[in-house]
């Protein structure tokens, strides 16, 4: 390990860290430092997460009684539409790639910034503009199309602010494309000496694959929304069945993006979990190369299955069969990942710190949500449960139980690196456990209600479903508390917590070899890498002390 970037060998920087590099507000708003832009993104998405959460809090409150009296049907429709739009495009899609992703990718591959720093800043301003459009749509009276904007309702019948909302999503899409291009180019062009493809941390692989999906799928979303806007604004008849248009075509265009988008939302989370587990199990991730292929397979096959959202839409039965088959196939790489995470624990030295709790929660909830996806991929079952709460439960299990948990896990894991402060461990564990129980109480009853036949997007519902809704709403209250906790103690830690060392977890990633928080240019000297990621030793010693177990495992895997 003579010329390696073994931890501690790099001279520690003496210049001020990136947070203190310059202090004016202007220096933040014109920064091209990927770490600062990541923080800017984090502020925006936190804001939107709580806005989306507040909207659905009202919804859950209303659903406690079958004949809701709290709000009108129109308000109800606007609330869940706002919730869906905001949570998907302004929170979950940019959540991990645009915060942890752009913060960590250069650090993890030993670069001083992303390939196109000004494009990066531009992307943030686009997000802000997009967010402004969406907030405008909300303030001006809201939008009531659901996050799916189905035609002809969105084009000819809705009296709400569809144009502004679609414009917001349209811009947000371009913002993610800009970040995607940036990340792909960075991973290809700026890896430091010795950082070969198969030494990349899985998080980098995951964000890289996500970026490919973003770049190739988002333009189609842009077109579908552009056509909706054109139809609303200029009366063009593209989706108007009365003039020969085809409403189902819209669904094809929308889902061509939005199915791959669900992998945009889960792949980075998988990457985070793949980083957390080795750190706290002190073990190399099991089957690293298969994990890489699985990531790429998910990204690739993810483009072939969108039609499973349209089984009852009037699509041709022949196409439905193709899409159903491919939907089963995409579960194979997900299965590989679940098994590999599980076996990474085998013979480890497992510590149950907060990030690890989130990661373990992720595995269980993702598996549950993924398995429910198989029910949906089976056409006859989907015919019954589509557009019911079964689907709502399915995707919240993956997106909230899975991705949001992983996001929180990553946030805690890298909090010391990002802010230079430790978070309060026992509070964090408590929040993680509370989140897990709150989550299951909120969304498990929805599976049952869904199979019993409770449709989604229902303001009022037949009274026999009340019991499940009451359970769900009480779970949501716990969940809200569990999400507010980190907001509290993480903010507290910024001011009062202990200073973090460079490598509090004894981890092997390159990002831990610089100071916390990192200096303006990330590394003072060009790092070099001479070994694979996750070079942990299971006997519990830290990476530098133990023998290079990585090589031995490599031999075993050959």
């Amino acid at each position, binding site marked *: 390990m003579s010329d390696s970037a073994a931890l501690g060998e790099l001279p520690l920087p003496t210049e001020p860290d990136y947070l203190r590099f310059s202090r004016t507000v202007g220096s933040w708003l014109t920064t091209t430092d990927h770490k600062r832009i990541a923080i800017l993104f984090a502020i925006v998405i936190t804001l939107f997460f709580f806005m989306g959460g507040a909207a659905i809090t009202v919804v859950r409150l209303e659903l406690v009684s079958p004949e809701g009296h709290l709000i009108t049907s129109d308000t109800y429709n606007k609330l869940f539409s706002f919730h869906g739009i905001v949570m998907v495009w302004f929170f979950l899609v940019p959540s991990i790639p645009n915060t942890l992703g752009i913060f960590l990718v250069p650090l993890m591959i030993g670069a001083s910034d992303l390939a196109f720093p000004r494009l990066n800043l531009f992307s943030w301003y686009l997000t802000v503009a997009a967010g402004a459009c969406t907030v405008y749509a909300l303030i001006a009276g809201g939008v009531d199309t659901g996050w799916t904007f189905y035609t002809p309702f969105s084009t000819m019948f809705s009296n709400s602010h569809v144009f502004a909302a679609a414009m917001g999503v349209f811009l947000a899409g371009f913002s993610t494309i800009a970040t995607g291009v940036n990340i792909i180019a960075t991973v290809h062009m700026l890896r430091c000496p010795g950082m070969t493809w198969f030494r990349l941390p899985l998080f980098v692989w995951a964000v890289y694959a996500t970026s490919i999906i973003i770049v190739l799928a988002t333009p189609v979303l842009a077109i579908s929304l552009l056509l909706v806007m054109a139809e609303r604004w200029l009366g063009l008849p593209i989706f108007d069945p009365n003039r020969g248009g085809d409403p189902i*075509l819209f669904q094809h265009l929308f889902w061509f993006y939005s199915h791959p988008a669900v992998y945009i939302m889960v792949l980075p989370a998988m990457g985070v979990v793949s980083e957390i587990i080795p750190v706290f199990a002190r073990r190399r991730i099991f089957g690293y190369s298969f994990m890489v292929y699985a990531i790429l397979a998910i990204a690739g096959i993810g483009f*072939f299955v969108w*039609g499973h959202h349209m089984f009852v839409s009037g*699509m*041709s039965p022949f*196409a439905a069969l*193709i899409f159903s088959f491919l939907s089963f196939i995409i579960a194979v790489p997900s299965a590989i990942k679940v098994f590999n995470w599980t076996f990474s624990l085998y013979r480890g030295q497992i510590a149950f710190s907060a990030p690890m709790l989130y990661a373990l929660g992720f595995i269980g909830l993702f598996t549950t949500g993924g398995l429910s996806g198989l029910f949906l991929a089976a056409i006859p079952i989907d015919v019954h449960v589509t557009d019911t709460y079964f689907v709502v439960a399915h995707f919240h299990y993956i997106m909230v139980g899975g991705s949001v948990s992983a996001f929180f896990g990553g946030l805690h894991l890298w909090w010391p690196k990002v802010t230079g402060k430790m978070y309060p461990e026992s509070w964090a564990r408590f929040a993680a456990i509370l989140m897990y129980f709150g989550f299951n109480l909120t969304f498990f009853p929805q599976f049952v209600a869904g199979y019993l036949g409770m449709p989604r997007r229902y303001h009022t519902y037949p009274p026999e479903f009340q019991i499940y809704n009451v359970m769900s709403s009480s779970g949501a209250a716990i969940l809200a508390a569990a999400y507010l906790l980190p907001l509290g103690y993480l903010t507290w830690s910024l001011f009062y917590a202990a200073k973090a060392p460079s490598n509090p977890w004894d981890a092997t990633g390159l990002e831990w070899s610089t100071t916390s928080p990192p200096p303006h240019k990330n590394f003072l000297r060009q790092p070099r890498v001479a070994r694979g990621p996750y070079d942990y030793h299971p006997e519990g010693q830290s990476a530098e002390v133990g023998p290079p177990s990585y090589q031995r495992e490599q031999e075993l895997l050959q």
Partner: protein
Amino acid sequence: MSPTIRSLWLRNLAVWAALLGLLTLSYFAAFWKLGSLTTAIGFGIAAVKALLVLVFYMELKEARGLVRLAAAAGFIWAGVLFALTLSDVLTRS
């Protein structure tokens, strides 16, 4: 005119001539009464023209593998979009 400049022009003018030739062909071919073949010819010629621009003007001929890969990805994924959407549209009753 230096020799570099001359070869620069010659090379590119040849491609340009081919492009305009194809454009002319495509103009007249649109009037041939061949049913749906006429449409196919129109798009076929467009594809050839696009290929010429891609290969010569956009220098995919000399480009590195990585760049070609990026270019190919665009076409392949557009192909997926077409193939699977049309698998529905063409078989809908």
